């Protein structure tokens, strides 16, 4: 069917803007829509205006550096967004497609361009961009908040661990206090009972000689009572000192000091004393306590050596299960652990009728060790020897 189409009229009334330019940019033709969009008359544009006259300076940079070269290299270019400037100087956003029209020999004759006004699209684009920026900002904010929450959770966990440690300390203290209370009542009970009995005898007795004898017995018991009370007070002092200042201890040095203090006893006993602190040469421990512990254990080892053999005493340090061990080994009289094991570290207990044994030494040593968070155990065989194993600080399991 013949629709008698007037192409010129079609071109002129097209709903998109058309213009045609020479290779140097001079506009040689345009349709009505283009003139409407840019607000110019035909006379003002044709042969008068250049493509780049419709662009801002910023747009011109893009035109010269990207648009024109790409068009030259591939012959067409599409969907370029420019801001076109109207006659009154205001700008509107466009999408532009261009194509090079060449002759049969490939010579560039014209550039044909189609222009669409995208003002509405642009508004939508900008709204999208704003929304995208807001969303990104919100996402970043959430990341920050999340990080903050994570940090707080970590802090709370740390605090929980600290509280557990405090709880453990308090449990320890509680145990020590109740054991002390038990010991106190037990050890004070006996002499006080004695005194009560003597008092009764004293009151019943009329004889002066008997009274004098009773009173001298009372004096003896009071002496024992006084001594026991003093020892208990000493241990209370130790037990109260849980948060004790730790020093940097060089075992070798402290041990040498201990040897110096017991110089005479060592000479007399002819004991051979050796040490090996190479595996764990230093530790963090209260100085006074370690001195007291070493002194107590070494003096015990010398005191309770077997008379028929040369005393051999060896102190050393070891690392086991991430805990520092201090070990004191001797070849002395040994202890019958079956008989006395459960009373070994109690107060006022002696297993050998030795003139110097008072029986408070091991109690104090155990208290000191436990006060710092460690533990002491013993292995022994009668007439073979004894080994004391001290864990300086127990690992919390």
């Amino acid at each position, binding site marked *: 069917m013949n629709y008698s189409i007037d192409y010129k009229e079609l071109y002129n009334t097209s709903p998109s803007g058309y213009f045609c330019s020479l290779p140097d940019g001079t506009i040689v033709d345009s349709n009505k829509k283009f003139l409407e969009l840019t607000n110019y008359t035909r006379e003002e544009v044709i042969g008068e205006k250049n493509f*780049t006259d419709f662009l801002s300076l910023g747009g011109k940079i893009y035109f010269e550096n*990207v648009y024109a070269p790409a068009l030259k290299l591939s012959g067409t270019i599409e969907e370029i967004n420019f801001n076109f400037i109207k006659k009154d100087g205001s700008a509107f956003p466009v999408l532009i497609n261009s194509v090079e029209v060449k002759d049969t020999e490939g010579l560039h004759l014209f550039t044909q361009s189609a222009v669409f006004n995208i003002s509405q699209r642009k508004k939508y684009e900008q709204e999208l961009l704003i929304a995208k920026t807001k969303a990104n900002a919100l996402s970043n904010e959430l990341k920050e908040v999340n990080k903050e929450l994570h940090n707080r959770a970590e802090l709370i966990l740390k605090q929980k661990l600290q509280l557990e440690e405090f709880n453990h300390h308090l449990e320890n203290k509680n145990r020590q206090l109740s054991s002390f209370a038990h010991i106190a009542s037990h050890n004070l009970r006996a002499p006080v009972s004695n005194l009560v009995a003597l008092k009764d005898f004293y009151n019943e007795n009329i004889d002066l000689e008997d009274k004098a004898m009773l009173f001298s017995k009372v004096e003896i018991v009071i002496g024992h009572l006084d001594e026991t009370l003093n020892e208990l007070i000493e241990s209370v002092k130790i037990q109260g000192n849980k948060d004790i200042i730790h020093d940097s201890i060089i075992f070798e040095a402290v041990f040498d000091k201990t040897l110096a203090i017991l110089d005479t006893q060592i000479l007399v006993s002819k004991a051979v004393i050796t040490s090996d602190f190479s595996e764990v040469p230093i530790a963090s421990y209260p100085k006074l306590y370690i001195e007291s512990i070493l002194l107590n254990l070494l003096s015990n080892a010398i005191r309770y050596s077997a008379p028929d053999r040369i005393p051999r005493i060896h102190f050393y340090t070891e690392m086991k299960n991430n805990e520092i061990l201090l070990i004191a080994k001797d070849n002395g009289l040994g202890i019958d652990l079956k008989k006395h094991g459960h009373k070994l570290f109690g107060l006022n207990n002696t297993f050998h009728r030795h003139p110097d044994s008072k029986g408070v030494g091991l109690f104090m040593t155990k208290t000191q060790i436990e006060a710092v968070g460690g533990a002491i155990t013993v292995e022994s065989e009668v007439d073979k020897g004894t080994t004391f194993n001290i864990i300086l600080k127990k690992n919390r399991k």
Partner: protein
Amino acid sequence: MLQKLVARNNITIQGTGSKSMFLVHGYGCDQNMWRYITPQFKEDYRIILIDLVGSGKSDENAYDYDKYSSLEGYADDIIEICDALNAKDVCFVGHSVSAMIGVLAAIKRPTLFEKLIMIGPSPRYINDAVYFGGFSQNDIDDLMETLDSNYLGWSSAMAPVIMGNSDRPELAAELEESFCQNNPEIAKHFAKVTFQGDNRSDLSKLTTDTLIIQSKEDAIASVKVGQYVHENIANSKLEILETTGHCPHLSGPNQTIEAMKKYLI
């Protein structure tokens, strides 16, 4: 080493000749810009073409925002490539911003370059109190907005898909055929570095024999700017062509070739 550089800068070598001609494109496109020029020099020169890192088919992953925040980064690349190719007495041809890159490279290694040809150079685009670069900061901001809204076949969501994706070969093919399609983020950064730069003080340090080729009408690097460059380089000649536009090597290749040949005799 050379293999790495070839991949990084998409180096292509054409022609035979004892002398080397090293052509570097300016802002916006890639080595395809020289396609009308190089055939005329293939017989006499070993022609070296590259894409600046971040442009064309160069290795995008090598675009270090710190290194390329100054033109020195690109100048170092030029020197590195010359050394790797064992090029001596190089004739360096730089368009637009690459003319300045050439200046910086020649200052660093004067014995490497025999001649410098600048097409549409500008040492600074933004006007100041006494200097006419042609643009204000507003104009450059305007350029940034235009860059923002023109992705030329890229889409920031799609781009990573395209770069590494073998199951959309038709997209890759599309990119292969299109020109001046550079990563939008990098293009923006490069634009900032180019159009907000100032290399005026470097001009006087250049001792290399220089030819400045200038279109008689160029909105980006006007004749005034060309003259400024000529006045500040001691050993220079200025040739104004009867061409329009910022890329005479594309829009007026014959005139450009003629000017180059006249100078290189």
